[in-house]
């Protein structure tokens, strides 16, 4: 894992000047960052007034960037039914260029995964339109939360790729590494905010990484579960027990930054007008696979639960070389019946360690 930075270039940004830098960015981009709202929750939020919000970088936000690149519900097209025909019009929605600031490594990894999903087979115009106008500014995780296990999925706590600028908190300053060209453009355009980094700063970054790595409170044996799934040695009983507890909420898939399954449906607006919507879906729902006429090729809940974990930990490893679980911990502890991926990994590895 990360040692000396493989990112091309690094600078320093004093924390005192962060707001000033963001204010410059907000002039040209829509700015999205994790904000602790007045109720105490941390959400990625569109920031209209920098002075009115509290940007929170220490607690992972409850929503991920998925909501911005693949919204919970979005219009694909509208249609009209006339005597002459049944006509579809492309959606008129426009997406402003956006800076996503304060993205944790798990969520950056998730965006990289989504990039593959939405351009591998076919280029998905709706995802890519949102993605192409985006600038990602990441922040490495100095304090993984008790639920986090990105160390086991190879997606944190520090990350070397995926962002345009990657920040590391060094106390009174950020070490800023530039990744893609757009990152260089930003640091050059507003070079007044940045000063050169030294070997000492880079050593401090390495020290921060070592400390962060030591702060994980749990060891989740994801690799082992992947091997067992690939070897098909996970007992059916594991899936059966977990599926008895699944209460069909869909929450694990909806909160997951890499669960990209969606459905498409028509919503009538009146007798002759309507819109075609794409919305989040979850493979754990019975209706996910049911065909017209009622036949369901995934006959039991067990099959759906197997699909969920097999997809994340086996099929996506085959596809991208790594699991699509990024260890963000969002699904951990939120399950109505205790059927989260960590429990799956634990049960799968029981007696084999």
């Amino acid at each position, binding site marked *: 894992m990360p040692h000396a930075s493989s990112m091309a270039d690094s600078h320093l940004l004093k924390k005192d000047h962060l707001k000033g830098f963001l204010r410059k960015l907000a002039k040209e981009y829509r700015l999205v960052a994790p904000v602790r709202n007045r*109720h105490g929750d941390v959400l990625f939020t569109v920031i209209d007034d920098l002075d009115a919000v509290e940007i929170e970088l220490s607690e992972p936000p409850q929503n991920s960037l998925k909501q911005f690149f693949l919204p919970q519900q979005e219009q694909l097209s509208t249609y009209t039914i006339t005597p002459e025909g049944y006509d579809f019009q492309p959606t008129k929605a426009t997406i402003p260029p956006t800076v996503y600031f304060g993205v944790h490594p798990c969520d950056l990894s998730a965006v990289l995964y989504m990039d593959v999903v939405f351009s591998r087979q076919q280029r998905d115009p709706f995802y890519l339109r949102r993605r192409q106008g985006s600038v990602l500014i990441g922040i490495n995780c100095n304090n993984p939360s008790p639920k986090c296990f990105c160390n086991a999925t190879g997606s944190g706590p520090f990350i070397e790729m995926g962002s345009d600028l990657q920040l590391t908190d060094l106390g009174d300053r950020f070490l800023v590494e530039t990744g893609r060209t757009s990152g260089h453009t930003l640091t050059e355009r507003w070079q007044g905010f940045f000063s050169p980094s030294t070997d000492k700063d880079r050593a401090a970054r390495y020290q921060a990484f070592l400390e962060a790595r030591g702060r994980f409170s749990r060891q989740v044996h994801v690799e082992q579960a992947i091997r067992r799934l690939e070897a098909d040695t996970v007992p059916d009983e594991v899936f059966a027990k977990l599926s008895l*507890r699944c*209460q069909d909420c869909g929450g694990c898939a909806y909160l997951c930054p890499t669960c990209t399954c969606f459905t498409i449906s028509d919503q009538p607006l009146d007798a002759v007008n309507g819109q075609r919507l794409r919305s989040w879906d979850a493979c754990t729902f019975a*209706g996910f696979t049911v065909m017209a006429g009622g036949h369901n090729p995934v006959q039991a809940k067990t099959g759906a639960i197997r699909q969920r974990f097999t997809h994340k930990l086996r099929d996506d490893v085959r596809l991208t070389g790594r699991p699509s679980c990024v260890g963000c911990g969002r699904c951990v502890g939120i399950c*109505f*019946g*205790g059927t989260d991926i960590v429990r799956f990994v634990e049960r799968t590895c029981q007696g084999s360690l």
Partner: protein
Amino acid sequence: MTNSINEIENAEVILVSGSNTTEAHPQVARRMLDAVDRGARLIVIDPRRTRLAECSHLHLALRPGTDIPLLNAMMRVLLDEGLADELFIEMRTENFLALRDMLNRLDLEETAALTGVPLPLISQAAQLYGRARKAVICYCLGVTQHVCGTENVQTIANLAMLAGHIEKEDTGVDPLRGQNNVQGACDMGALPNMLPSYQAVANQDYRDKFERAWGASLPEAPGKTLVEMTHGGKQGPIRGMYIMGENPMLSDPTLSKVEETLRGLDFLAVSDIFLTETAQLAQVVFPAACFAEKSGSFTNSERRVQMVRQAVAPPGECRTDSEIIMELSSRLGYAMEYDSSAEVMEEIALLSPIYGGMHHDRLDQSWGLQWPCWDRSHPGTPFLHKYYFTRGRGHFMPASHTPPGELPDAEYPLLLMTGRIYHHYHTGTMTRKSERLNRECNHAVLQINPEDAKAHGLRQGESVQLASRRGQITLAASITDQVEPGMVYTTFHFHEAPINRLTNDAFDTGSGCPEYKVCAVRVEKMSS
């Protein structure tokens, strides 16, 4: 609920009665299963093998309507095993001797036989419950929707008091409220015999207080209950009705009677967000704003009063129910002028002691407050009955078995139970409009045991006719051993299969609660 929802996960023993918790109260079930994962024991009393029953340690599959004998038998075991909490009984309760005498006269074997639950299982459940340090009882409409609903509830209270499982953190008796603001509607005095905060209409002092505050004289006699109003018949005592956001044409028992009553009115006005089955019968329909389009507060099952915040403007010409009521009231000669729901809440705080410290600014800055909250400095009450019962000493009310109003016979040989399912809410007015929820579940099914299905020659998913003495409907058979032979189960969410055409309007005289959980029906295969 006497406890908070989160306390349930700390209990050592959880006794669930008449609640399909995983489907009707998912967040409560989440705490129960979390508790189980931490080592708690889960006991489920339900005629059906619900999902929660499958996850339980003990499932007592009683015959519907035999809750009292079952609980009495459990209490007798507690007595016999010396598990009664004598100190608690001595210090905090009254009328114990009456209960003890009644229990001692019980023939345990006979009582167990009545319930259909093997005595050893009852005994095991009683001992688990009795020996626990922290134990909660959660119950829901499976307990109350019987002719003896009030006695059922009293018997649960007897059990909890006998074991001393009340008045402590993580310990108590928790009725789960079915609807999002059923607690609040009761608290606000939307009851025929109660002014806000359970101040009896019949009490002169309370009336005086409200008359002074409202500047109007108030009727003395308690009013009619919902079922009395909706089942009066064509020439009933009610001539006109105003219905706000309710759909008795799907939710009330014996729908033919409801329809006759509503059609027979001189005038019916309905305010709702969709054109419900009830609104279709109205002379005037008001388009109301939905929860996302107004501000105010709801009170949840754990007495937590929390803010409802406006997110968007109402569509078209919709107005909030507050606006509609104020307009009507002024036209009827009683002016009401409130600039905001916060102003209404200030009046509620003024007149309802348990809401005394509830103001929107406080609710807005917190996750809400649990009543009683006596004044602005009061932090709210996470669990009730600490140090004293609301009424003083806890009163044991011994009860004995009351059979349901209608039981299966030769003509209608099956016992029908009704309830809710996970994907839909109440009469489906909102949830049936959701593409996803409809995809997951878009029609009513009749759960029937494989034995009964075989006897009727039914295949999975086949349409069947279900009939009672009051009506008949068509729905799809779902063959499952979740129900015992001789019982069938369905839900009331679907207007295509309005089960309340069949249900009995026998009701509990104590609470006015209809007996939705038991009536006699027969199943007929459709001739295809």
